[in-house]
């Protein structure tokens, strides 16, 4: 295991990540770091390895080699249960297609991460509703995901990602399935809500207009990352 240190002040940092799926190299020495409250866009063409980087950073997929440190702890040194607990309490997730549970109402969907952490229903739904208000979807509380539009569903998903007050939100093409106007509204609300909660956002996107909501960007090409801030 690499024992190099993370950049000072960073909340989540990865160094020299390598990951292959069979003969296909997905990551070939990628680096990454993010500070508390920062929004960092991970850009790059399809198949460049940006989603694999996100999955490794979030502890969903273990890298073949390299170091990932979250808040001073090495992810590889943690048990599966430890990483799961981390994902449930410290991380939030938004995907391209909201991935809401169709059988639950919107407020139940948003409250779900709290319920999984053992919070009582009423309390969980009260907190969930607070986040739904901030994302301007509180009027959808009793509707099921099938009854709301794509943009509304994605805002419900953003509320769900923030409901546990995570320190890092991982957003993988969060506007990929939305038109420009809805996509921009989701980005405005996501970045505003995350900034006010001092949550860092790892934003995977191939769209420059979405990346423009970030504080800085890294570009992944052929499994290697490039920090664009150092270029300018």
């Amino acid at each position: 295991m690499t024992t190099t240190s993370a950049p000072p002040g960073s909340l989540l940092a990865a160094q020299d990540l390598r990951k292959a799926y069979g003969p296909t190299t997905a990551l070939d020495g990628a680096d990454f770091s993010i500070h508390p409250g920062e929004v960092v866009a991970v850009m790059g063409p399809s198949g460049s390895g940006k989603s694999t980087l996100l999955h490794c950073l979030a502890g969903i997929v273990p890298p073949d080699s390299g170091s990932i440190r979250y808040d001073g702890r090495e992810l590889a040194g943690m048990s599966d249960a430890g990483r799961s607990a981390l994902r449930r309490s410290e991380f939030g997730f938004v995907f391209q297609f909201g991935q809401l549970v169709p059988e639950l109402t919107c407020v139940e969907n948003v409250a779900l991460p709290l319920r999984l952490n053992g919070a009582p229903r009423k309390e969980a739904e009260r907190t969930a509703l607070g986040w739904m208000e901030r994302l301007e979807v509180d009027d959808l509380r009793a509707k099921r995901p099938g009854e709301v539009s794509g943009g509304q569903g994605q805002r419900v998903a953003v509320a769900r990602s923030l409901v546990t007050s995570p320190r890092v939100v991982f957003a993988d093409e969060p506007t990929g399935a939305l038109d420009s106007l809805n996509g921009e509204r989701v980005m405005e609300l996501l970045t505003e809500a995350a900034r006010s909660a001092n949550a860092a956002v790892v934003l995977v996107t191939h769209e420059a207009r979405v990346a423009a909501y970030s504080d800085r960007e890294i570009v992944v090409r052929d499994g290697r990352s490039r920090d664009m801030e150092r270029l300018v």
Partner: protein
Amino acid sequence: MSIGHTLLGLLESGPRHGYDLKRAFDEKFGHDRPLHYGQVYSTMSRLLKNGLVEVDGIEPGDGPERKRYAITEAGVTDVQRWLATPEKPEPYLQSTLYTKVVLALLTHRDAGDILDTQRAEHLRMMRILTDRKRGGDLADQLICDHALFHLEADLRWLELTAARLDKLATAVRP
């Protein structure tokens, strides 16, 4: 932008003084580039000479006299013709960036670096415009969107070119 046609168009809703015209122009279309008084008065004299506006009244004062302008029938026809004529789409065939990339390849410099540096600069501008949109009214949002879509198109070209640098090197090197 045709300042003459824009000022004419603003006059269609009623006669105005030169100063009012400048203010209306700056407020609606000036954004970061307000008109100079000189531009307004030289444009108005040209429109006057061409019969597109007429002097509707003169207010005497201590300073220079204040003329009030009104659009003429010929002026309205001119505005109508201008609005109905499509703008010529910019063909974008003279690209400094393309020239830089080819020169870098010919002189064995790192063309990828040139593209990435430009990419970062474009995204920096896109962040500024996105921030401005967030705090702006609908007019601000639309004008920033226009710029953002163009910058995005550039970025797509930068990305596509970065992916084809090896091929381009083979094609341009003797």
